[in-house]
């Protein structure tokens, strides 16, 4: 099952993404705890896309594609920015400074997904069911 949504680069549009993804996961009967993780990490990456990738330019968009398979759930999040060069390693993500106020989203994605891949301005998240 493959689904796609395109949202405007405005953080107020994240609720539309959340509700859309929550419905997809419910329909696919994805276990509650895994759904919560997927909803959180997808929002974290989409937030980065809006704020840093597209720099909140509202005529730029963020595209989210979701594939729900028998064994995995794959989520691609693509923006219209320049992209990032590297992802933090698991070791770097584990060295979270507890009281740092920012820069946590990508580290959480590394820690809470089963795999994460970077293709310039697109991030692929993989979760095992």
């Amino acid at each position, binding site marked *: 099952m493959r689904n796609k949504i395109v949202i405007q680069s405005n953080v107020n549009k994240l609720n539309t993404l*959340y509700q859309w993804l929550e419905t997809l996961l419910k329909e696919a009967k994805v276990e509650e*705890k895994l759904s919560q993780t997927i909803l959180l990490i997808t*929002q*974290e990456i989409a*937030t980065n896309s809006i704020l840093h990738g597209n720099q909140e330019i509202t005529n730029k968009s963020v595209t989210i594609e979701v594939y729900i398979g028998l064994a995995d759930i794959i989520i691609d999040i693509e923006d219209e920015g320049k992209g990032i060069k590297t992802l933090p390693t698991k070791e770097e993500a584990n060295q979270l400074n*507890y009281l740092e*106020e920012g820069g*946590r*989203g990508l580290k*959480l994605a590394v820690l809470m997904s089963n795999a994460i891949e970077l293709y310039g301005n697109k991030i692929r998240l993989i979760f095992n069911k």
Partner: protein
Amino acid sequence: MSISTITLKKTKKITLLVQKFDVSNMQEIKQKINKELKSKSSDIVIDLSLVSFLDSSGLSVIIATFKQLSAKNKKLQLCGLREQPLELLKITQLYKIFTIIDNCNSIKE
């Protein structure tokens, strides 16, 4: 209205009146909490029992509140944490730093 506040004897209890505490409302809630912090200095309890979704932006507001209170030798306590917010505090290891109370009703007047 995104928060409500009750002043108890030694503590101020701030209840978040939102289901999602995230990047979309963090600025508004941060400003309101900061306003409370500027008034009479006291320990703070944040009641999260209505919050079913917390992201790293919402978390950053809680961290900033903790830091401001610590600088004044005041305490921050969190109560009523639901499953997802609690899981986020565990993965970020912040549950070791924050004081967490299960039942918000146990906070004495």
